[in-house]
């Protein structure tokens, strides 16, 4: 079987260069056995254009740094095989995140802001005793937490979300999923009121319009629809009960 010739159309733009203009550049490449987009990009950078910028670390769908728009869909470059794609492949950087250059974006700042905003740590009044035996957690709860924790912070759900594309402060599926993770954690002592305060607004739960691009595109197949809906129901209940603090002068 003869090898396919692949044509890559890649977004090029380095915002720090004063005269640079965004444009698409094409490269051609022979397909190899089991080639991923990440491998192909490496070939292009090595053999054709050392100035091409893109991110990767683990090459095994663990670190989440290689996400990009591949033929219109947000995907992990290291997990996407060229044989599953037509011979013309268009690559764009993820929208919403700050563009560093070409295909490389800064997801780190966004996710750090999200973690701080959702206060992604177990809130407890208990003193930690390093000598005590660890508290037990039932298996079901542990699995539920684990399911949400599988998020690799790649940003595909954020880039695919129409709301996040126009609302900079929207925490997106990754953020709402994060809150859901702490809601099921029995060690976290936060109340419904506390959670409502964090995401009971258009920045969080109520900003989501259920367009499900997150659910369609999460490379880790997190059950985002159900997670989003779970948080929405919890937050609505908490909100209806919450004592509101409206400031009046």
């Amino acid at each position: 079987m003869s090898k396919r010739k692949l044509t890559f159309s890649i977004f090029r733009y380095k915002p720090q260069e004063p005269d640079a203009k965004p444009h698409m550049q094409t490269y051609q490449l022979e397909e190899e056995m089991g080639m991923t987009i990440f491998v192909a990009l490496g070939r292009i950078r090595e053999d054709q254009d050392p100035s091409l910028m893109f991110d990767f670390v683990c090459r095994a769908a663990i670190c989440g740094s290689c996400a990009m728009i591949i033929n219109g869909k947000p995907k992990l470059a290291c997990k996407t095989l060229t044989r599953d794609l037509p011979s013309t492949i268009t690559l764009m950087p993820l929208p919403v995140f700050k563009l560093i250059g070409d295909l490389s974006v800064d997801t780190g700042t966004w996710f750090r802001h999200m973690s701080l905003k959702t206060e992604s740590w177990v809130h407890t009044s208990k003193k930690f005793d390093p000598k005590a035996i660890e508290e037990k957690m039932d298996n079901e709860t542990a699995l539920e937490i684990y399911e949400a924790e599988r998020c690799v912070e790649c940003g595909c759900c954020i880039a695919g979300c129409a709301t996040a594309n126009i609302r900079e402060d929207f925490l997106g599926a990754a953020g709402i999923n994060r809150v859901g993770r702490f809601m099921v954690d029995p060690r976290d002592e936060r109340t419904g009121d506390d959670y409502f305060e964090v995401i009971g607004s258009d920045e969080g739960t109520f900003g989501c319009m259920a367009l499900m691009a997150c659910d369609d595109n999460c490379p880790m197949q997190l059950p985002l629809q159900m997670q989003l809906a779970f948080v929405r129901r919890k937050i609505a209940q908490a909100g209806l009960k919450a004592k509101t603090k409206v400031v009046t002068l």
Partner: protein
Amino acid sequence: MFVQKTLTRNPKAELYYDLVELFSGFLLVGFLWTHMLFVATILLGSELFNNLSAGLDKYYLSYVGIPFIILVAFMHIFTAGRRVPTRYQEQKIIWRHAKMLKGTDTWVWVFQVITGVSIFMLGAIHVWVVVSGWPIQAMTSAERMHAFWWFYIILLILGEYHAGFGIYRQFVKWGWFPRKPIGYISKLITVIILSLGIAALFVFYTMAKGGGIV
């Protein structure tokens, strides 16, 4: 911290908006489907249709119902409409985004907005015409539909589309059921109501043409 935001913040506002969007939507879907079932009574003969109309009139259901539904419709427009981007750049972002992603649900939402706006305009005309030709009688309806059948077909399709997908999206959003089966069920109901509507339209149309009561 911003003074203007701190002094005006109502933490529950967006929760209420969301709930009003949900309930007004459900009421409107319920109304639309009952409305179409009432209209479809013409399939069983114009006598039943006229009696039903007169009955609703007699117990003032029409007089309470119509203003109530108009009110609910406005609540729905305000709460659901707040999502619609008004700035040109935002609209363009959404449009590009939907084209790029080819995500069905993102397109569904874009069409929800377009159909929503169209329903608002056509619906207003429809209500105006019906109310000014009060009471509802099989024969007057037949004449209207004979002359403006295309108008009613468009309104019917837009309405059913908007309602069917709207209800699907709310179920998805609140997660009462998984995505796939809900998609099938809402499509099925939409098809049933749509065929009832078109059948009724056809009966009215031939009625007016034949110039007589069936």
